[in-house]
């Protein structure tokens, strides 16, 4: 019986997108390059009918995510949340993001947010995946987001965040300490 030795273009794309997310979260703050721009390629590599999502604002992503078969729910119930976090209002709308439980910290939400990498607010990151510390600059993230994150995270409870700038992505897991400089 012949075995499939070549991945389809779709398989390769989702595989590559995941690999970048994996390294982005393993080395928080380190910029990785996705195979395609935007949040849709992330959605298709991770989501399917066995998870839930919430999209705030961006209609294009909404359709791409819905195509995966994932269930649309509110931000307080979603596994995967896609939202801008550039204004105080948008950040406040995400105040209910799931933090997981002590027995199941993996039930926490993951947030994918557009941002601008390499400019703007300077942040110092420390924690797993970072040798000593790493200073990065991130723009289009309201300062209230970092405050909300600081209050919400009680490790191992907390959400994990990816910031996406066109086809570049960084990951900030809940295990990372973020100091706003």
């Amino acid at each position, binding site marked *: *019986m*012949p*075995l*499939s*030795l*070549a*991945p*389809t273009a779709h*398989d*390769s794309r*989702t*595989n*590559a997108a*995941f*690999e970048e*997310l*994996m*390294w982005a*979260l*393993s*080395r928080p703050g380190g910029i990785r390059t996705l195979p395609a721009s935007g949040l849709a390629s992330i959605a298709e*590599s*991770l*989501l*399917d009918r*066995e*998870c839930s999502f919430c999209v705030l604002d961006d209609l294009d992503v909404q359709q791409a995510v819905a195509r995966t078969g994932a269930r649309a729910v509110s931000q307080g119930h979603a*596994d995967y949340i896609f939202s801008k976090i550039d204004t105080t209002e948008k950040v406040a709308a995400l105040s209910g993001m799931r933090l997981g*439980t*002590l*027995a*199941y*910290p*993996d039930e*926490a939400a*993951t947030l994918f947010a557009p941002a601008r990498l390499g400019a703007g607010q300077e942040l110092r990151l420390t*924690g*797993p*995946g*970072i*040798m000593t510390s790493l200073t990065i600059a991130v723009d289009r993230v309201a300062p209230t987001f970092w405050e909300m994150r600081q209050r919400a995270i009680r*490790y*191992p409870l907390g959400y*994990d965040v990816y910031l996406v700038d066109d086809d570049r992505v960084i990951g900030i*897991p*809940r*295990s990372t300490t973020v100091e706003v400089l």
Partner: protein
Amino acid sequence: MKLQELTRPWAAFNYGFLDESAKREIRRRILKAIAVPGYQVPYASREVPMARGWGTGGLQVSLTILKPDAVVKVIDQGTDDSVNACSIRKFFGRVGGVIETEDTQGATIIQSRHRIPEEKLRDDQVLVLQVPDPEPLRTVQSDMPVAREMHGDADYGQLWLILYEQLVKSGRIMQYTEYPSLVNGRHVISPSPIPRWDVLKLNKADHLTILSAGREKRIYAVPPHTRVEPLVFDDVPYRVEDHQDKTCYRTNVTGFFMNELPQDDGSAKFELSDSHFGVKHMRKAEGEPVAIGDTWYKNGKMNR
């Protein structure tokens, strides 16, 4: 919408054997495992064409991250030539068309049963460890839901008690492999049945380690640059196996983890457990241009 738009051309197997929904689930779990280092993420764990207990967990993780230009090394007890390692490596070739290697330096994915290679792994490499029993609390708590609560509460007192009892009974901590270790200062893991010699290699490493138990259906991870600290008492230091002065009879290399080979006359010979590390030394001694990577251990001691 037409049916044709929903379907894809039929193929006997997906690339990498696992179908896309299995891969997506494992991808989601791997990310959560990285986000909470040392926490055991439950996953569905599909059946694969290999018996449970023979590395199906490691296999599923490797199959998920596999791609055609991946370079895969598979070892069992440190050797590439072990029958089980051969079988798994062949499977990757069959379902993934990947490049197979024995060279630790050349691999992008290293799947291993019970050893970490002696050459340091780099930041572009993933180490996938096969795990028979992911639960370090099993000896003190056989009820898995209760063990989960204990991890949630960082309730590890009973583990310390077991180690203390060993100290009192035998004069030293008797835990040989699967040495309970604290990850990121928060979750205790079983680092899989790697020897104590290898556990120190996980601490603040450059590479990513993913541990996967197929039968028990748990994935956990140690990201790069993350603390992994074997549980020890302040006044009782961690002790690795006494191999610092052992010499491999084949290569004359000293100070790495060895296999002991009983001899007819009652004595023992030692050979390097990391077999390809040994092969490289032999080739080098014969004049071949061989790249032997930097090692964690130097002169039989962990270099930290």
